[in-house]
């Protein structure tokens, strides 16, 4: 069966520090991968999605970036965090071949920028 991992689970970082969040998927090949951010009590904001290694689509211009160095690994990064980067970051994957993309979510990373 497929599983999706995210780490760390929680993170407290000072403003201006770098960020690296990692997401890995097991049990499937060639997945579509997604990064979302959820502010407190709010909906999900799609940040990035990827349909293959090195293929990243950005939905929101900001100081965040994403990379996909391996087929089942998706990394969210920032060189300098802002207070507004605080939130709950969720990674998700979907099958690439189905045509209808039901998504499967990881447990999330709670980021607090101080």
């Amino acid at each position, binding site marked *: 069966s497929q599983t999706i991992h995210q780490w760390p689970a929680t993170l407290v970082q000072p403003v201006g520090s770098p960020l690296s969040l990692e997401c890995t998927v097991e049990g499937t090949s060639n997945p579509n991968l997604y990064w979302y951010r959820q502010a407190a009590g709010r909906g999900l904001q799609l940040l990035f999605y990827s*349909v293959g290694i090195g293929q990243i689509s950005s939905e929101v211009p900001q100081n965040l970036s994403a990379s996909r160095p391996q087929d089942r690994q998706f990394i969210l990064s920032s060189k300098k965090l802002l207070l507004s980067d605080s939130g*709950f970051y969720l990674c998700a994957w979907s099958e690439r071949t189905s045509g*209808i993309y039901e*998504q*499967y979510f990881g*447990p999330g990373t709670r980021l607090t920028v101080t």
Partner: protein
Amino acid sequence: SQQGEEDPQALSIQEGENATMNCSYKTSINNLQWYRQNSGRGLVHLILIRSNEREKHSGRLRVTLDTSKKSSSLLITASRAADTASYFCATPWASTALIFGKGTTLSVSS
């Protein structure tokens, strides 16, 4: 970007009652999905309804889709305290992604 908007934003009911939440979207879609999120957790897929379907059932869940009104509803029958969560609708975006609404927070008290 197109986005589902859930209504109401919050809903409080007693155990045993039915809970209905609605979703409206802006452009034509080929499917609409509903997800559930327990506090502090990732989302879990509940049900998918295709554009050629009017109604779909899964256990205590009933979803309807009215493409002419660009709206969908999620009905949870005989609610339980364990149904307390946020519920989101999601519509397709850019052929491989989904756009989620802001969600309905459901509280079921015993």
